[in-house]
């Protein structure tokens, strides 16, 4: 039995994997190496209530006590520079070697940069430091320009409005969240942002951003200019693959893993935002997810498989977002759908079921106040996992309990 398991990346996925190794009874050494100096913390609050709380505090995933209790060797602030696969060891940026028997890469993702756009007034949001810096800027009357109408940009727009900042959000495509949610939900989200006073610009690309120490100007392709005190760029994230790529592991829109999360080297696993993997329920389609629950689930699964369990990925993608009082939840991959069936839950809450050409429920997107859609999205997720073909009339009828369809 291998004795020293090393995990690179102490985010949601890496931290979960370390704890899961112990929960599974592994009694060898576990080292969790994190490039950030902090204890593992949750990212989702950084754009949401973390921005609003009176006192900014990181939500820790695993406290020092819990890590110590589980006998996990946490090495924070240590960047891994290279994997020496032949010698089965890692080389850290400060030049030390760390041997491993099995290795998990949970290196996550980094914000996609806007080429050539740099400066003090340009912000990205991924880490605690990013959030702290931004938070200090979001003051009443401050002008924030957000590039990108994705989840990070929209959540931050909501938080910035709550803090009294003026927000202009620029989206290159004709509507918000084009790839993520159906048009009806995007329209509901857009209306809510407009109500909050966010100025939205659609269908206009960025020609350039100029900035000095105090302000920035975003020039758009149309010739329009947006003057701001600061610019947040939220145009997606790219997987952190350089370690794996330099070690010549297979890369395919992320570190390529098989259905057991193994890379092209059987002793090296990858999980979470950094990897792409095949999803059985969609015919083995390879995807990469940037989702909190996926990071957790894959962390646990990677731990089991590092211990030889040989279990396949079986989860349904799931994602949530909070903006203002609205809660959005998505289960499954909506782009697998050919048609949509709508269920109204009352009070403005609704669920859109995505049905494939052959009648299978492949995804469900829901939006409503608070957690109004949670229960039904969870049940939809189970139906999706079962590859069910529920009657469309039943899906549309809010009086038919989804639980009853599950039993069918």
């Amino acid at each position, binding site marked *: 039995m291998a004795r020293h398991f090393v995990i690179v990346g102490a985010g949601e996925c890496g931290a*979960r994997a370390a*704890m899961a190794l112990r*929960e599974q009874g592994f009694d060898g050494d576990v080292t969790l190496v994190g490039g950030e100096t902090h204890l593992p913390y*949750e990212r989702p609050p950084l754009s949401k209530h973390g921005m609003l709380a009176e006192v900014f505090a990181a939500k820790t*995933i695993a406290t020092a006590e*819990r890590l110590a209790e589980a006998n996990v060797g946490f090495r924070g602030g240590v960047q891994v520079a290279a994997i020496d696969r032949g010698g089965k060891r890692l080389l850290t940026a400060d030049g030390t070697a760390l041997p491993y028997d099995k290795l998990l890469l949970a290196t996550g993702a980094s914000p996609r940069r806007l080429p050539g756009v740099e400066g003090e007034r340009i912000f990205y949001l991924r880490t605690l430091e990013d959030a702290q810096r931004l938070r200090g800027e979001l003051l009443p009357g401050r002008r924030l320009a957000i590039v990108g109408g994705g989840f990070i940009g929209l959540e931050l727009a909501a938080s910035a409005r709550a803090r009294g900042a003026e927000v202009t959000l620029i989206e290159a495509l004709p509507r918000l969240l084009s790839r993520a949610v159906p048009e009806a939900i995007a329209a509901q989200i857009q209306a809510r942002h407009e109500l909050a006073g966010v100025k939205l610009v659609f269908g206009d690309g960025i020609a350039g951003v100029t900035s000095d120490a105090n302000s920035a100007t975003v020039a758009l392709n149309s010739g329009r200019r947006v003057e701001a005190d600061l610019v947040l760029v939220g145009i997606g994230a790219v997987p952190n693959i350089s370690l794996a790529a330099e070690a010549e592991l297979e890369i395919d829109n992320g570190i390529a893993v098989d259905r057991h999360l193994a890379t092209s080297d059987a002793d090296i696993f990858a999980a979470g935002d950094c990897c792409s993997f095949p999803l059985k329920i969609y015919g083995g389609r390879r995807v990469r997810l940037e989702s*909190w*629950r996926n990071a*957790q689930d894959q962390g*646990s699964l990677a731990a089991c498989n590092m211990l030889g369990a040989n279990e396949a990925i079986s989860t349904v993608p*799931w994602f*949530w977002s909070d903006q203002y009082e609205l809660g959005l939840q998505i289960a499954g991959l909506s782009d697998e759908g050919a048609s949509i069936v709508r269920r109204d839950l009352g009070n403005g809450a609704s669920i859109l079921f995505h049905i494939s050409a052959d009648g299978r429920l492949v995804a469900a997107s829901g939006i409503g106040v*608070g*957690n*109004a859609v*949670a*229960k039904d999205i*969870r*049940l939809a997720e189970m139906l999706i996992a079962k590859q069910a073909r529920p009657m469309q009339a039943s899906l549309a009828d809010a009086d038919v309990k989804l*639980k009853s369809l599950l039993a069918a």
Partner: protein
Amino acid sequence: MVEWIEACGADDVDEEDVIRFDHAGKVFAIYRSPDDRYYATDGLCTHEQISLADGLVMDDIIECPKHNGRFNYKTGEAKGAPVCVNLRTYAVKLENGAVFIEV
């Protein structure tokens, strides 16, 4: 001081479901199990303070509506990440078609 409080009518909760009950500034969750017994726990998730009554009950488990943290509602036990702190449970009795909890 321990006291019995009327939380709801027995029929207010569906089988294998949960409702919220507020009392004296505290939130409780009242459950009815698939085998038709009643249970009560603290009503807010121990991860973030989210009302569990919007969550899904399956067998002995209540799943938090926000991030799917799972608890056994009969024992209050947290079943793993992201929840690691158990829920407090409360004794329950049925009287004259009403559900009472001991707080």
